[in-house]
């Protein structure tokens, strides 16, 4: 089942790449190829931007209470896509569909299609564990493991059975997480002794260590001071060269600063039944959302008139 996730998109991918590059693609002999091999490839040439995700009429229900409905939009490779909207509109619910973290909530059920490189992640034969190997996640509250800094980073590569020199994997992940210089002398100390901002960057570095294709971030900076936030934003801008990022944020400036595209969701919790379900209002290039949105409600929200 892992192979279906990995092979299908690869084929498309390769065909697309073959036209633009002469780099021989691995796996042309029919071997299963991990998605990450192409994630670090060259940036797609301008104009050939790929949708890595295609959400088609996605809805999530907790028990019998619907949380979001009818969400349809693409997410593009090597971009930062921001999800914004008032509290309770289902941003976390939706981002958790993108790596099947919703499976952990027994009451949650997902309808519609969440296509990842053309493969519906919610198909029966898809193994959520395989999905999460390719799609990393960073949570709102830093959640380092109660282990050393080194072991925090090494945990992912170890459980995935990645080969290579672990010291190098750890160092490279910490460098990509902009944390190496601060912690290189204390790799064997407990991660709980770090500041909140460092812990969050550790969690980002930890997600990078397994070389995922996509990184999902649910309000990664909400518990951090402006300086740590700034560093993480810089980091995201660097990372999008090689990864695709989806971020949920309540910070309008943050969405405006880092994201390429912004999706605005809305919910009317006080309204009549059908409006109490979160839904997408519009998805546009970030600049457009913040200067000249299509929908009046978007404008009201980003200018602070409601929500």
């Amino acid at each position, binding site marked *: 089942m892992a192979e279906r996730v990995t092979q299908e998109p690869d084929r498309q991918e390769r065909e697309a790449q073959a036209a633009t590059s002469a780099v021989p693609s691995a796996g042309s002999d029919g071997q299963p190829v991990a998605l990450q091999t192409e994630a670090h490839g060259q940036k797609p040439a301008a104009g050939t931007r790929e949708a890595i995700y295609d959400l088609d009429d996605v809805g999530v229900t907790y028990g019998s209470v619907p949380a979001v409905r009818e969400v349809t939009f693409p997410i593009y490779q090597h971009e930062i896509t921001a999800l914004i909207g008032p509290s309770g509109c289902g941003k976390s619910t939706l981002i958790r569909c993108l*790596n099947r*973290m919703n499976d*952990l909530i*027994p009451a949650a059920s997902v309808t519609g299609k969440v296509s990842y490189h053309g493969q519906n992640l919610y198909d029966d034969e898809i193994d959520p*564990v*395989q999905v*999460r*190997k*390719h799609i*990393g*996640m960073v*949570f709102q*509250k830093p*959640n*380092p*493991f*109660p282990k050393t800094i080194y072991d925090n980073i090494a*945990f*992912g590569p170890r*459980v*995935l059975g990645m080969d290579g020199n672990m010291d190098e994997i750890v160092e490279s992940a910490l460098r990509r997480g902009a944390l190496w210089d601060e912690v290189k002398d204390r790799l064997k100390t407990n991660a709980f002794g770090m500041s909140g901002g460092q812990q969050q960057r550790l*969690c980002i570095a*930890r*997600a990078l260590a*397994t070389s995922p294709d996509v990184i999902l971030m649910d309000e990664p900076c909400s518990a951090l001071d402006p300086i740590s936030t700034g560093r993480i934003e810089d980091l995201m801008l660097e990372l999008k060269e090689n990864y695709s990022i989806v971020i949920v944020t309540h910070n309008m400036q943050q969405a405006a600063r880092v994201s390429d595209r912004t999706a605005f969701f809305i919910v009317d919790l006080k309204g009549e039944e059908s409006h109490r379900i979160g839904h997408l209002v519009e998805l546009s290039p970030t600049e457009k959302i913040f200067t000249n949105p299509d929908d009046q409600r978007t404008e009201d929200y980003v200018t602070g008139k409601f929500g």
Partner: protein
Amino acid sequence: MSAVPEAGLSRKVVERASSGQRTKDLMFRLALLFSVSVGFVVLAALVLDVMIDGASRVSLDFITSFPSRISPESTGVKSALIGTIYLMVLCAVFIVPVGVATAVYLEEYANRDSRLSRLIEVNIQNLAAVPSVVYGILGLAFIVRGPLGLGPVLLAGALTLGLLVLPVVIIVSREAIRAVPSSIREGSLALGATQWQTIWKQVLPGALPGIATGVILALSRAIGETAPLLVIGAATFARFNPEGITDRFTAMPLAIFEFISDADTEFRAAGAAAIIVLLALLVVMNAGAIFLRNRYERKW
């Protein structure tokens, strides 16, 4: 008194009201203190009494000599102490895997709302409250005789005591597992770890201090039990050490029972001394549990 001015009177009124309040407060505190002291004083009196009777008999000779029916001066608890230590180890080998596995299943796999797991849960709670003599009867019927038919041997004793404390181990392990925050599980699963890897490498190490504490406390309850061992027919007097798990055995509580019920009051001192040895063992174990809890307990 006449010197007290008018204002003093009204102040007095205010004070009286608050002093009534204070009396109530004081009485409440005294009542609490009394409750605490009941337990404490009784325990202290018992320990003191035992010490007075037996302290002079505790010696290296006492714990390295076999018991004697004729000489109260040279009797000892060698076979009982060895039996108890064997029981403890065997019992741990049985209850740790079974108890922890059950706890992992109930916490991490079972659907908490299903009827089956609720039934199991209620049963475990109830089993923890079943009198120990009932476990003795169970052990006699199923382990010593009946299907297993082991006879009154070490393994049978360990299994019987294990069944007795298994509910406690399960309950404590479940609590320790539940105390590992779900953000740790999510972090691990989000990295592509399987549920099994998450449990084995994140949840269990995080729960280990709590589980270890619970196991030690369960074992310290097990080695103090007398009734089940009597019921399954363990020896109360043995001038030999068990050499394998299928040997007959005796244990500290049984030795104490034997000493104390001897018609010759001379043996009472030996009984008190044996109690001191058993208490010392229990204190060491409980200290170990407290140490583990304080040293490794995590504040998430």
